[in-house]
């Protein structure tokens, strides 16, 4: 069955069995390996992407459910690593093995869209379902605060008319 959706800004059509989870469509049909498989049971968050801006797990999400939707994956956050969350993740040196981090970053970037300056308590609840087996949680927390600063800095710069990035 043919299913259309927008993937990282580009119109995309796949011809697959409609109950195939979006995770496997991304990884094995579209060869986009950034989104990861950790549990296959909506328990770990490694497979998190944005569906219409909302952080969404994809390992149990039938691809037919994203028909017509806008899907953003880690590859679409920015291809050159210049999204504030990506910059913060590199600077703070969050990754250990790095396997969970795409999912973490997709959850964080969605969170910061709605809450540009989350408190530690808000971070705890927003990140509660993204597991990191290497337990980089201290770094993730630090990087979330740093991302928020970078975004605020960008906005301040834009507002003051400097336009600097």
């Amino acid at each position, binding site marked *: 069955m043919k299913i259309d959706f927008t993937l990282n800004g580009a119109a995309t059509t796949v011809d697959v*069995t409609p109950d*195939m*989870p979006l995770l*496997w469509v991304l990884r*094995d*049909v579209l*060869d*986009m*390996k*950034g*989104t*990861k*498989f*950790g*549990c*296959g*049971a909506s*328990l*770990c968050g*490694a497979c998190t992407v944005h569906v219409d801006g909302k952080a969404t797990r994809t390992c149990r999400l039938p691809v037919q459910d994203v028909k017509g939707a806008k899907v953003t*994956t*880690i*590859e679409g*956050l*920015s*291809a*050159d*690593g210049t999204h504030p*969350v990506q910059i913060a*993740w*590199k*600077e703070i*040196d969050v*990754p*250990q*093995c*790095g*396997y*969970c*981090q*795409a999912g973490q*970053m997709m959850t964080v970037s969605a969170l910061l869209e709605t809450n540009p300056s989350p408190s530690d308590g808000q*971070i*705890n*609840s927003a*990140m*509660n*379902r*993204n*597991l*990191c*087996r*290497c*337990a*980089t*949680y*201290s*770094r*993730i*927390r630090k990087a979330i605060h740093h991302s928020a600063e970078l975004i605020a800095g960008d906005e301040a710069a834009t507002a003051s008319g400097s336009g600097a990035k």
Partner: protein
Amino acid sequence: MSDSTKGRLSRRNFLRVSALAGGGLLLSTRFELLGTASAATADAAGSLSTHVSISPDGLVHIVAQNPEIGQGVKTMLPMLIAEELDVAWEQVRVTQGDLDTDSFSGQFAGGSMATPMHWKPMRVAGATARAMLIGAAASRWGVSADSLTTDAGAVLHKATGRSLSYGELATEAAALAVPSADNLVLKTPQEFKILGVSKPGVDNSKIVTGQPLFGIDVTLPGMKYAVFAKSPVYGAKLKAVDLETVKQAAGVSHAFVVRGDTPLSGLQDGVAIVADSWWAAKSARDELVVEWDEGPTAAQSSAGFAEQAELLSKGEPTQVIKADGNVEVALGAAAKTVEAAYSYPFIAHAPLEPQNCTCHVTEGAVEIWAPSQTPERARDGVAELLGIDKSKVTLHLTRMGGGFGRRLYNDFVMESAQIAKQVGVPVKLLWTREDDMAHDLYRPGGFHYLKGGLDANGDLSAWYDHFVTFGEGKKFSASASMGLAEFPQGFVADYSLVASKMALGVPTGALRAPTSNAISFVIQSFMDELAHAGSKDPLEFRLQLLDKVIAAGTKTRLDAKRMRNVLLLVAEKSGWGKRQLARGSGMGVAFHFSHRGYFAEVVQATVSKRGDVAVDQIWVAGDVGNLIINPINAENQVQGAVLDGLAQALQQEITFEGGAAKQSNFHNFKLLRMAQAPPIEVHFLQSEGDPTGLGEPALPPVPPALCNAIFAATGQRVRSLPLANHDLSWT
């Protein structure tokens, strides 16, 4: 993975230098490593080596030779080379090497061994290349090598102000004779510019943009996908299976039975299903009907082990591991004795990237992409399994989504090779999370029946541990043993460690800080009980024990002075004994020596009246030698290890019923979550000796420090893990 692996570096080294096609210098260094290797680090024997190349544009390409599991070795080993080469880190480009036992050795990730093994050879490799570049400049300018210095990838002649970049000199340098390592002068720590300065991971840019790096990401033209269905009971034999129905399933191209062999961690009986997509293979497997002959292991259970252990504890131990003095007499003479029974469960490794391996078997050759901590053993195992020469096996190392010891074992590599052999095209085998939980080589559980004696001053006077563990005859199951000189051996004259064993049908293996991650809980908790029994402050009690040995000058496995210093540091940083805490909150302390590292830790925890445990903060003091090579990663590793220990203590256990693990995914085998992660302060004492590894030794003190904190908070002594099984409520 054990402390018994002591690699000594000989001074002999072999160097090969060749000109790079297109100009430049390729340096390949081989060093001979002498020493004994335990079974788990058999790969450590042999020669050490590294590759560096400098291209005419001045970029320095360094091959990272070891498997990266998240420990940061892909950044650290190149730092060692770059330091002595005297280049700017910005000039360095790191690539992952394949398995290459002719050029490299020590290509494994285990035992926190990369730092102690490679600390000198990698720096010598860098210094050798630097000396040759200096030699090339000296002959070009007609000056003596002594008059030249280097900085940031250039050779400088101070007297005339001339300079040449390494890129300009590389081709000429490659034509020079290789200097003897004996004539090289390595930098002193005061001269380091790269070592000791934080370097974020070299793969960070790729990780944050989602580029394919991991084993699971490997894609090859014409590749098929496989799942492999095994019995939940280890060692079961396949009795009957309906392959025909599976073969009809959408996308499935092959379904066949693979017969296993006997050794633990080897190939097991199972059904391979190969399809056009992994989802198709997995969906077909969901409908698979197999009948197993489960064999004797099906009679084993965690409840059964506990009963058996209790029984064995009442009988005579079957083995004396270590006996000093006369513990029976000492206990009889003690002013006070304490008895306690401790136990800890089996646990799973659960790295976040499920086991996978991609393999292509063609006529007479095999190519493998293996997320393996022991790639050499993976290659040799595949060669043996398929009956081909190992020179015909090419093995590519991939980044791994965690290891923790699980990927020291190559069962999934063997499976992928066996399946790929039958299919003929490249095949990626991928396990489900449920496969991973059901087919781990678990951290073994264990039982300890302890007796301790105190003299009239409340000082430790006797220690007796009847360790009921797994194994047969003299042989312990993997990671189910204890060393001869485990603390407090050597710190108390009358000491006895004896063992009894139960047969085990489930495979066990090394999990981050193997054996230490379990026994530290027992030793450091019981130490706490004894301190309280003698009405001493738990930290003071430990210090006095260390001080006595320091004063007597007795030689012990752990250096009592170094341990004393980290203990004092953690006491100071945590404000030990100075904080006023409300009822329900308390601090606990513990220390442990493993993998050459000294760690003392304090946990502050609060137990609610309902019995919920919240960890408020953790302080860590560590001593791993005279330098922290990459501070930004060192902190991350220590925090990760500490939280790993915390997760184990709080909520992790694998229980067996009918020979199979009951836990199947992250809903019942619980990883730590963000909200459970307290602030962790990490302090390093930069003491003496070359730097040693950091991946493991920070973990073991956490479970006992937490349980000791719970005792301080509530008066409840926890003698079995995980805490989730205990009612800790109080009024």
